[in-house]
């Protein structure tokens, strides 16, 4: 079973600290001074409407639709999460269409394609399919979880999922009893 980051909408105050932390965590240089406003691609997005305030991000689906539909086999499951091989991404957006959570963000930006000879150097477009990668490059785990001022964000491990289910079954059993006529 995969791990995933979950946001409790009853705890979220909509401060967007998670978005900024996410962007900083995915920069080559994590310092705030290296922040580039033109590359602001948080992998979780705050939703705020008449009913709810909460960030939405990848659920690391077991049978991930994004992985199933990728025509270039850029998305796969490993080590309890869904990975994107950015080198393979062609920016076709099929994964974004397939994702039921709107958690996949396909971005494209100009890059300089380096070559051994300056003669063959050229400007081209690089596409990336961005989604929560649980900050697997980061020893301390997901940056969003660490910075959330109200602890609305947390990592749900498979064992915790089991525990939660057990607890819900217990409650359901008690509820069932009260519904049975004597």
């Amino acid at each position, binding site marked *: 079973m995969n791990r995933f980051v979950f946001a409790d909408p009853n*705890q979220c105050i909509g401060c967007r600290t998670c978005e900024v932390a996410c962007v900083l965590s995915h920069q080559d240089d994590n310092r705030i001074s290296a922040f580039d406003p033109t590359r602001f691609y948080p992998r979780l997005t705050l939703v*705020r409407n008449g009913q709810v305030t909460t960030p939405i991000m990848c659920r690391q689906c077991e049978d991930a639709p994004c992985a199933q539909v990728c025509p270039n086999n850029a998305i796969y499951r490993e080590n309890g999460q869904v990975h994107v091989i950015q080198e393979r991404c062609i920016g076709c957006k099929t994964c974004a269409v397939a994702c039921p959570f709107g958690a996949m963000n396909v971005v494209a930006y100009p890059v300089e394609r380096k070559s051994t000879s300056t003669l063959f150097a050229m400007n081209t477009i690089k596409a990336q399919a961005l989604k929560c990668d649980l900050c697997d490059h980061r020893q301390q785990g997901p940056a969003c979880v660490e910075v959330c001022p109200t602890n609305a964000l947390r990592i749900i491990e498979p064992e915790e999922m089991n525990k939660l289910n057990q607890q819900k079954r217990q409650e359901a059993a008690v509820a069932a009893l009260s519904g049975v006529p004597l």
Partner: protein
Amino acid sequence: MSNSITEIQETKCLFVFGYNAADSHPIVAKHILKAKANGAKVIVCDPRMVETARIADQWLPLKNGSNMALINAFANVLIEEGLYDSEFVALHADHFEEYCETVKKYTPEYVETITGLKAEEIRQAIRTYANASESMILWGMGVTQYGQAVDVVKGLASLAVMTGNFGRRGVGVGPVRGQNNVQGTCDMGMLPNVYPGYQNVDDDEVRAKFEKAWGVPLSPTPGYTLTTLGHRVKDGTCKAYYIFGEDPAQTEADLAHLRKTLRGMELVIVQDIFMTQTAEMADVIFPATSWGEHECVYSSADRGFQRSFQAINPPENVKHDWEIFCLMATAMGYPMSYRNTEEIWDEVRSIAPLFAGATYEKMEGLKTVQWPCPTVDHPGTSFLFEGAKFTTPNGRAQLFASEWRPPLEQPDEEYPLVLSTVREVGHYSCRSMTGNCSALQTLADEPGYVQMHPDDARALGLRDQQLVWVASRRGKVITRAAVNERVNMGVVYMTYQWWIGACNELTIEHLDPISFTPEYKYCAVNIEVIKDQTWAENYVQTEYSALKAKLRKTASATL
């Protein structure tokens, strides 16, 4: 605040009135969530569905400007239904008869049309508040930034008195302050009528003490309030203005009037960390250090003194605030010198009995000391009025109610919408600190936003994120529409930190008669749709660049 921020978690009923913790104080919002998790009932009175309203047990979306009527109705129910603590009132409060008399006509039914709330909702809310074993009230600028503000503050405090919610943990009243360290500036005597430690300037005994300590004769009359400076300049009683850590050309109501006041001064000195628009108008600029560049003592909203330490060195030739004050005083013929901030703090302690025991030593290790702290062996005070001993001359609470006064400038045909100024989480106050943070800029940037209800937007033929003109009788600014189902119809909301979309060009300088705070929360405006959005986007960029260039030029001229 009468009680501590941490005590929010201990209350059984949290009554939040005109206060948006999620945007103003995320840390307090965290305590509110903890209170809720601990089982407290949460009641929110706010026209907008703020984050606390979203998680509240009951949300009362009252009409803007109806605060006093609603509070009177709460009091009316307390009396009519016998929900108040008659023993506490008899033992510890005065003016009960007058109080009853004033609120008599404010039945929940009577205020239905004023507040837009149903009588039953009002009854239910105040029953919850009165019946909880510990109830705490929190309020913010939604109470204090009206022409009728102090009355409402007293009205809220009276609800706490009526229900015996003072002098214990997890009760009381919490005016959660509008700025960081605004509590500190009050504590240190920045109010025009008191010396440090809330000692009145017109009290002969107090004045004699300060005259002795400072070795100079002192004036027995209170000073001027900021909002009366306009008249003072006109009649020639005020000629110079020394501003530090404040950007009135951004934050005052009716900016055109404020600029006129500033221009009318013979001398304007501004001490700030960045080139603000106020600084741009100054005759003399003293560059100052930011919070990370100096050490100091802060007061939090719940009267807690905390030390803060220097993390980085300021740029060369930039002096600490206290050093600048010493040099200024000396230059004006009063030699003033201190070796360090502790020396200054010890002087404060020696002349302000409330703070006498709050030593640097006790604040060591990031500890906080809450005043009153009268002696060195006193631990500080988490909650005020223990044993229901109040700080009034006779030691008793003074119940107070007042007739409701509607806000001054009502919408009409020409200006059909109400404008209320609010906060947003990403940018702090006038933005002189957060405006230079690129991450926060990315989340929200010029020209800022005007929040409005989808139906109001539809009526104007307006789409979300379009640029619009917002105009009042005092000015006109361009801003971006944020169509938002959390705001009420007929009212639009703007945050006051933007340079281009500066909502204080529109606000009205209608003052509360006691606090002299302007009615930032209510004035009439209209919204004009801009057909050519490409032109509008270019206009914003051009104006923003021009303003930045002007400030940059002024800044480099001072080097």
